[in-house]
């Protein structure tokens, strides 16, 4: 047999348009590689160089992604990856998250004596993993991207090498994460066995075309894949790893995880649901009562996340449980999406606003965390409004936003999300969601009580807020209020972005 019959020659060439579509990924990858080269030499002022390089990398990635957002949809590498408005929108988000994480990490690493170049390199690689994850159309690519993202984050979680809690968190995350990856991989294998394809769209087509119903292997396989993702987004009952990991990880990395990892997993989940026709008549996953099960998962996630958060006195743990609760709201959005003409746009908007406010909140926790993250108990915030009025104000904005109180971005996003759910006739689910969010108000208020209504404790001067972190906080506060007051642009953008998924 001739070689040209086995290998399609077009696979070996790459057109100019494809290169253009790949620019964001290449920029991120290139930045990370240059970082590795820099890391090999012991240069003076290496930390400035590394931080600068990483930020420039994120900016370039973001710049190319914004340009590519307007480009037509292109399927790359014979259907393994796709470049569309949706993937590039999330590329911008990941570049943004990575950049802000670097900004808020800079002084933190100084204070903890952790200024190693690996930190930046791992962060960039993890962002690259997220970018690839949301553009994957093939289960193998998806798995590789997931691993690029996760492996980098495992290491980052354990980055405070001398700290036992950090090591424990990293270990726990690694073992459980590896198990989840294995489940995902096993599910992929079963799907391949059932349909003979690894392409998401093809799998769905073949599953619905079979004359003798949907095979059992297919059902099991799709559930195993779903479990892999439910683990990553920490929905109940796959949430138990999260509080420990969040608590042990260096604070900026916790912020990176709650926003980046979660957004990437959800964005991919949406793509999978969309291409498998979730909720529609021809749904490949239909017949597995996926809707009912997700309904139960959504309620449990919201309820358990919020109720356990009530009892937390450690801020990072509290935010971890609140993050679980927010996962629940997002699942409500996923359920509603196929039944309304708003589609997945509310979920996308919610992911963006959640990322903004959470990055801001964790940037503040990073400022306040003290040596080895020991000053993050609720009582440590006592009287903060008198010591650092602006920081207290910013944190109040973020907590009001997470509680969904106008005029903040959190309210606009929650309104949009729950409105779509009512439109989809999930009225009881929405009633439960708002009652859960009423529970959440209590623990968010507890933080405000500490900051504003208690007297300051301790007289030690925490010193100036580092300008790097102040930048992040100012930017996220401005965005939280801007999206809260004038959400129109973001609403339109999220709609347009989701439109590109359909074509």
């Amino acid at each position, binding site marked *: 047999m001739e070689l040209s019959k086995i290998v399609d020659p077009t696979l070996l060439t790459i057109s100019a348009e494809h290169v253009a579509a790949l620019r964001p990924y290449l920029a991120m990858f290139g930045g990370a590689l240059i970082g590795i080269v820099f890391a090999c030499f012991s240069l003076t002022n290496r930390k400035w160089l590394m931080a600068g390089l990483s930020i420039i990398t994120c900016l370039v990635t973001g710049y190319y992604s914004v340009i590519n957002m307007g480009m037509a949809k292109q399927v790359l590498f014979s259907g393994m990856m796709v470049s569309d408005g949706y993937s590039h929108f999330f590329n911008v988000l990941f570049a943004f998250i990575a950049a802000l994480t670097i900004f808020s990490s800079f002084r933190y690493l100084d204070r903890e004596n952790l200024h190693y170049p690996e930190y930046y390199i791992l962060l960039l690689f993890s962002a690259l993993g997220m970018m690839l994850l949301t553009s994957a159309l093939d289960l193998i690519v998806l798995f590789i991207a997931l691993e690029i993202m996760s492996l980098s984050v495992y290491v980052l979680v354990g980055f405070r090498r001398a700290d036992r809690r950090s090591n424990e968190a990293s270990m726990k995350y690694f073992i459980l994460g590896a198990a989840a990856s294995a489940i995902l991989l096993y599910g992929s294998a079963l799907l391949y066995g059932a349909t003979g394809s690894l392409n998401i769209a093809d799998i769905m087509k073949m599953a619905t075309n079979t004359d003798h119903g949907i095979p059992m292997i297919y059902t099991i396989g799709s559930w195993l894949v779903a479990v892999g993702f439910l683990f990553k987004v920490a929905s109940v009952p796959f949430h138990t790893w999260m509080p420990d990991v969040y608590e042990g990880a260096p604070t900026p990395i916790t912020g990176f995880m709650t926003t980046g990892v979660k957004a990437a997993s959800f964005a991919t989940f949406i793509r999978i649901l969309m291409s498998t026709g979730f909720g529609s008549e021809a749904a490949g996953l239909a017949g597995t009562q996926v809707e009912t099960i997700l309904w139960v998962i959504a309620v449990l996630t919201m309820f358990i996340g919020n109720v356990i958060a009530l009892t937390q006195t450690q801020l990072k743990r509290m935010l971890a449980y609140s993050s679980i609760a927010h996962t629940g709201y997002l699942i409500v959005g996923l359920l509603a999406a196929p039944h309304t003409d708003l589609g997945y746009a509310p979920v996308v908007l919610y992911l963006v606003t959640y990322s903004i406010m959470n990055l801001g909140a964790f940037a503040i926790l990073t400022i306040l965390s003290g040596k080895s993250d020991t000053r993050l108990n609720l009582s440590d915030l006592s009287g903060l409004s008198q010591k650092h009025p602006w920081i207290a104000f910013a944190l109040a904005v973020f907590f009001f936003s997470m509680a969904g109180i106008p005029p903040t971005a959190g309210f606009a996003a929650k*309104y949009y999300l729950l409105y779509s759910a*009512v439109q989809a006739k999930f009225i009881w689910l929405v009633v439960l969601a708002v009652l859960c969010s*009423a529970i959440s108000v209590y623990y968010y208020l507890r933080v405000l009580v500490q900051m504003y209504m208690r007297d300051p404790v301790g007289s030690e001067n925490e010193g100036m807020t580092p300008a790097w972190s102040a930048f992040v906080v100012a930017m996220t506060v401005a965005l939280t209020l801007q999206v809260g007051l004038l959400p129109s642009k973001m609403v*339109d953008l999220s709609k347009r972005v989701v439109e590109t998924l359909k074509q």
Partner: protein
Amino acid sequence: MDWFDTHFLTCLTFAPLLIALIGAILPRKVIKYWSFFGTLAIFALSLRLLGIYDPSGPEFQLSESAEWIQGLGIQYLVGIDGISLWLILLTTFLMPIVVLSSFSAVEEREKEYYTLLVALQTGMIGAFVALDTFLFYTFWEAMLIPMYFLIGIWGGKDRIYAATKFFLYTMVGSLLMLVAIFYLASQHQVQFGHYSTSILDLYKVVLPGNGYFSAQGILFLAFALAFAIKVPLFPVHTWLPDAHVQAPTAGSVILAGVLLKMGGYGFIRFAFPLFPQAVAQYQWVFMLLGTIAIVYGAWVAMVQPDIKKLVAYSSVSHMGYVVIGLFAMNEIGATGAVYQMLNHGIATPALFLMIGMIYERRHTRDIKEFGGITKVMPLFAVFFMIATLASVALPGTNGFVGEFLILLGSWKTDPVMTIFAATGVIFGAVYMLWMFQRVMFGPIKKSENEKLTDLTFREALVLAPLMIAIFGMGVLPNIFLTKMQPSVAKFLERSTPKTVVGLNVEKR
């Protein structure tokens, strides 16, 4: 001037926020003066409404609209009618008084205090002018934030408990209302094909209304819960005594003067016209609850040892009249209810202010600690007497007009309830006058009371406008009623159940 007149409501709504923000960057020493003159200027500005509002027209006036979130049909839509006109004026009238009364009461963290207090006014005016449910909800909730801090930071001993309770109660009610708003808006989209959250559009949505748990019934309950909590109506009133007692004087005044009116206003603007059939069905329930609130509030007030708590429970009783007046569903009752809201917004703040003044002198509010105050503080006693009489609805004061109209109106609808409700007038006289007697008359039992000083000039200045309003509204009610009546008639017209034949509303 043209631009100014067409955007008058927007200017009026956001002027306080601007003043608060400028105040935040001014030096600490001048902030209270800045806030006082700022709110006074806003009051002067708001008086212009009387000139440009056309009292003959029942429709919303001075409307402005702009696209806000196009994708969801959400508009920035504001406008007023004869009901919100007076509530806005009440708000702007009370603000300078509240600010002036805080001059001596608040000494720590002044900057935050005045910023929050003045910014709160934007939320209150905004809620009264909003004609879009999303906009209304935004103001309604945003109002909670400054109030929460006012109670929680500058309140009494159990301030954190009271502030949290206040916030959570309101939040739970409003969230269920939010779900109802979602449902209404999505029904509008189903029936009319485009998104909108403007109440003028939502009024047109047709929903099945037969039975207590029909679509209208359930949605009505969701709205009514939010507003009943704010009113506060028995049995969801329990946050009020805590919030009132713990709040600083200014907080109590705003709470009693304006925030409770939001509940009544919400019924008028939203719950009634949106769900007319449900209102007709639930009429007896709310008449009953309103009557219970009147009698129960009065009884509980009678046994309170703390003056402030007594006045707080009297609020429960007085706001019960508003509820039965509204649910009487006739013009006299509804007019009386609106008038009673204004009266309560004048008399109760006056009482709270005076309780605050005496608290500043004696640091107690226990009735037992007083007695014979008339002898040492004669001017104070006169003012206190006037406010007390207004509160017990003596003819000639404003309270009489409102309660009389309400009972007249509810008699037409439900004479039995009205008889019970009318006993509230008697009990009201009992607890108020008994309290007055114990505090003001008799010998001076405590030696600390002998040294009490009478009102200062500033304090008299705080109270004088309220005293004038009490008599003005009592003697010349027609000034107010004529501007109100066309709008009240329109409100009742909107709230009358429309019989629709062949209704086919999508069901799941």
